[in-house]
């Protein structure tokens, strides 16, 4: 199992569109992937789960991945978060 942390850079937080991007990326991996915020732990392959995190701008989330491609999965998610989840945003 691997654990990594990342920060939400999107101005509007992990909202519908970025959350969808996250879920479709996570779903490409074999590993079980969970996201943890405080006492909430949800499945990263579930859009409902990701929305429930209510992750706003600047909040930190922990990735917990376990499976054959766990390292690649965590790395890919962190890369996507740095990329503002593919949203066309300007600072």
């Amino acid at each position, binding site marked *: 199992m691997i654990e990594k942390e990342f920060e939400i850079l*999107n*101005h*509007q*937080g992990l*909202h*519908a*569109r970025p959350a*969808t991007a996250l*879920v479709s990326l996570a*779903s490409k991996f074999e590993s079980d992937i969970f996201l943890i915020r405080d006492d*909430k732990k949800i*499945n990263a*392959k*579930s*859009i*409902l*789960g990701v*929305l*429930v995190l*209510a992750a*706003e*701008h600047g909040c930190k989330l922990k990735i917990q991945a376990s499976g054959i491609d766990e390292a690649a999965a965590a790395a890919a998610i962190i890369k996507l978060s740095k990329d503002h989840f593919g*949203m*066309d945003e*300007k*600072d």
Partner: protein
Amino acid sequence: MLKENEDSIEKFHNINNLYGIAASPGIAIGKAYINISKQILNISKSKIDKSQINNEIERLKVAKKEVNSELKDTQEKISQKYGDEYCDIIDSQISILNDSEIEREIFEYVSENLLNIEYAYKLIISQYIELLEDSKSEFFRERISDIREIKNKVLFKLLAYNEKSSNESIKDEPKIYIAKYLTPNDIIIHSSENIVGFVAEEGGLTSHVSILARTLDIPMVLGINKVTNIIKSNENIVLNANKGVLIRNPGTNEIKEYREEQKKHFAIEKIFIQHKNDPTITKDGKTIRLAANINLPVELNMVKKYGGDGIGLYRTEYLYLMKNDLPTENELFHEYSHIVKELPNEEIVIRTIDLGGDKMYLKFGEELSKERNPFMGYRAIRICLDKPDFFITQLKAILRASHYGKVKIMIPMVSTIEEIINAKKYIQKAKDILIKERKPFDENIKVGILVETPSVAFLANRFAKEVDYFSIGTNDLTQYMLAVDRGNEKINELFCHYDPAIIGAIKLVIKGAQSNNIKTTICGEIASDPIATILLVGLGIDTLSVSPIFLGPIRTVIRNISYKESKKFANKILKMETRQEIKLAIRREFDKNFPDWEKNYESLLK
């Protein structure tokens, strides 16, 4: 206590007419459709046999598939009626519906506990809703309504295996949508289906939903207390939104009468369409420009249908409100240039964003801080000047659209000269960036302000020196001048455009503009009221900008009055002391000029 409450509702129940606020005129005849998430669903918990597991799972799959195809249908209808820009609303519902991880969780629960699928589905989705309800962020809490709607849609499908659900059975008939409160999304989604009227418990005359309903020409009545408890799904009702009444159990004759009224309404519409190109000139030769207020590109069809001198107020908030995310410069440019290209020879006045802080915090992803006085708080130009990047994004989009026609910029909620100076600096900055980016725009774009604060009205003569035109927003001006919250139903009576102070302020603004050789428009509610037209023309207004459905009536009035007489009348009004006196005089003057109006156009009189 609760019992007592129920009794009083029951008593109210027997009264056939329920009264509210006429928010968007028209007549709707149909069956009541109670907002699905309002309905109480009786989900029982029952044991199943191991052999039934697969069957239960299959049932959920079928139900979700059906909901999915319904959502796709709705999306298709929205796209046809309003354009692809608004399909986002449904996208997020579809992705929630098709969450495969949640489905797996539900199936596991059913297999382990041997319980029926309805129960499992409700239990698990509700757990997620509860988690979201715990969230401190208002923004994410908004998603709760999406999830609830999906949950109930699926449960309805599951239950429909045994019994037809109350709303579904009347799918193809015209329906009147009844809810506790309405959002712009509700209007867009449901008016693309066979919803012919809207009713809600909350909301006043000038709320965003009523403006949207009026511009889409859908009857709406707001502020009917407890209506979702009183009316039953599937009940026959008539919505007389000209008078703000919901009629229960209408008799055959009554329905016939309302159908006649509807017919008359269409006949009048035809006349207005025939005359759409008649110039708006008074009998004695004074031209009054008649423009339209719009919120959405789709309303251009109405403007073209009834004829108007361009757009006097294009409210740009809807794109911000309907999207889940902040629109980008390109998205805004696409929308604005679409409108400009549709009316390339007409003036298009684009108002920069005019939202209150409550809406915008959310979009910026900031925690909502409750303002004690939101109407006097962080809103409109105040937000724009505080968030220059955000402001410049919109300005660049407007400037780029100006290349394709005659665009003017309008700044809302100005209360000081400094705000105008600063806004102009940002406009210049946006221009400089566009020059660097080699994107074309109209270098001489005109900049005006929406006059809606007492400070601007009071010193109109000075403010006029800083801008290219004035446009009076009478709704907010009335609210600020009279210190009356226009959304507060309890003091609706106090909110009055015909107060001597408001008429005086309008005159002051026009005078200030005239002595500086700039033009004045009125784009507030009062401009769309045919009864007020004589007064406004008499006060010396240059342009009236009205809801598209009122283009016909206002044109008719302008063409049949004399400017000279109107001026005399306005001078008389300016000397009056009470609003009652003014209201009466305006009504009398109107009746004198248009004795047959009520007979001919009854359904159009507000």
